[in-house]
């Protein structure tokens, strides 16, 4: 293959990817007049940093940020706590009903979220958990993907390490905490990053499960803000940038982990 052809293909694809995102940043720094002028503005005359402040006065954007951090953070912690624990049991223990429980766990992979959406809404309504943090967090406390990832990682740890710790009189919890967990650090990093980013971006459940502005997460709050103030594109873009920057920075710093994590999902 000719090099210039490859560079052209990859360069073009990268431009199509980057230019809209750069335009989003540009839009967030334009005046309202610039966003509506007949000549499309690509670089604003003087960057309107005040747009970001205005967003906070027009909408409870501070609440959105806090909600997103609390919900994505709590779910990520839950995954880091439970997924390796369950993965450890399926990797290293033999017990009655093991295969039945494993198949039951496997089956949950076949259940897309929309199937749970309506019954979860009814369940939360009955418990009075609609429009609360616990309502946003509990449906996502763990998942089969995370458990399988951790199981794959824990399986190669030598059994002798576990036996030795038990002979030394370590409690079962201690074996898990001091022998198993320290070995899984790279996998925990992948799990934590993926969980946080995808929960930070989650749209459907927070849309269904919240009903007042101060309980919205950023993706939902921003979308509803845009529906209400359709022409204020500079403010919508400012909100998009706030939602975008944390995950983008996180990704660029840790892209190796992400690429490894995605490759893992594809290797059967």
């Amino acid at each position, binding site marked *: *293959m000719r090099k210039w052809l*490859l560079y052209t*293909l*990859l360069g073009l*694809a*990268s431009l*199509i*990817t*980057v230019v*809209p995102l750069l*335009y989003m940043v540009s*839009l967030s720094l334009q005046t309202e007049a610039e*966003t*509506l*002028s*007949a000549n*499309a503005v690509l670089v604003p005359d003087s960057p309107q940093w005040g747009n970001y402040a205005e967003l906070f006065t027009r909408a409870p954007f501070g609440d959105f940020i806090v909600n997103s951090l609390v919900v994505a953070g709590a779910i990520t912690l839950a995954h880091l706590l439970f997924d390796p*624990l*369950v993965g450890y*049991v399926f990797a*290293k*223990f*033999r*017990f*009655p009903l093991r295969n039945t*429980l494993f198949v039951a766990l496997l089956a*949950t992979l*076949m259940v*897309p979220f*929309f199937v*749970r*959406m*309506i*019954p*979860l*809404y*009814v*369940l939360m309504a009955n418990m009075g958990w609609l429009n609360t943090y616990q309502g946003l967090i509990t449906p996502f406390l763990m998942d089969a993907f995370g458990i399988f990832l951790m199981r794959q990682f824990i399986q190669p740890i030598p059994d002798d390490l576990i036996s030795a710790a038990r002979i030394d009189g370590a409690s079962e919890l201690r074996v*898990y905490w001091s022998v198993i967990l320290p070995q899984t650090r790279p996998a925990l990093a992948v799990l934590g990053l993926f969980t946080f980013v995808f929960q930070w*971006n989650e*749209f*459907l459940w927070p849309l*269904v499960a919240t009903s007042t502005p101060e309980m919205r997460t*950023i*993706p939902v709050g921003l*979308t509803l803000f845009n529906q209400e103030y359709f*022409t204020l594109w500079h403010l919508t*873009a400012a909100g*998009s940038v706030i*939602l*975008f920057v944390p*995950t*983008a920075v996180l*990704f660029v710093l840790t*892209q190796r982990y992400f*690429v490894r994590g*995605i490759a893992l*999902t*594809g290797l*059967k």
Partner: protein
Amino acid sequence: MRPRTLYGRYARTAYLFLLPAILFFAAFFYLPIGNVVATSFRTGPMADQWTGLGNYTQAVTDPAVQHSFLVTAGFSVMVVLGSIVLGLALALAIDQPLKGRVVFRVVLLVPYLTSVAIVGLLWRNILDPELGVLNRALMAVGLPTQQWLNTAPLLTIAAVTLWQSVGYTMVLFLAGLQGIPETYHEAARIDGADAWHRFWRISLPLLAPTTLFVSVMAVISGLQAFGQAYIITGGGPGDATDLSVFHIFNVAFRTRDFGYSSAQSVLLLIVIVAFTLIQLRAGRRSEVTY
């Protein structure tokens, strides 16, 4: 016959460690799935009157439901084909020893880690007939403006979906390509096969499992698409982009008909599971071994 292993005595520990997971999956997966099926046989504003298969017979004869299934199927086909062609082309390009490969890989993956809210709002602005930057730019240079979201709405939101997901597909194909032993290519080179032949005769057949996985993932995510319709088009113009999950969402939370929307959820789930099984079976038959 239980295998006698070191761990037989530790069954109690296993159950204790599994307890939170068993409680969680029972309460938030199995109970809701039971409920969605139970609700699908009921009707009324409180979904408390038994109607048997009433919701299902209504759904399969309802033109709006049929239409939303067709829309979703068309959308999924576009996303699957685009994912395979574009994802594979980019993976083949980035698999070559080029300078700056990592940069391309990072850049192309960024949209995949971006919320559908950002992607939807951004493209809605870019494509908006009056306020959008694209038409304002075309107008400024004297070119005719375009109304993509009116003339080809489904194709347009499929393209936006690809814009978001193609980096992910590329990384999957890249992992598949790197799993092909270099010796195969070397042997073919010695036999005088050019790059084109090597791709058709070696890479493509050996990538079959990856291609299968990519197409399964793309179908599953395509059939579940929601944000694109909710944010970019509102299901319109008319009902041209009334994706199934968006349709179900509206029946459930706008019309407040939980029985009818539950039945549609179950039907869509059956379609997704059936598709997945068909694809996996077809994939097993076409696997190549060397």
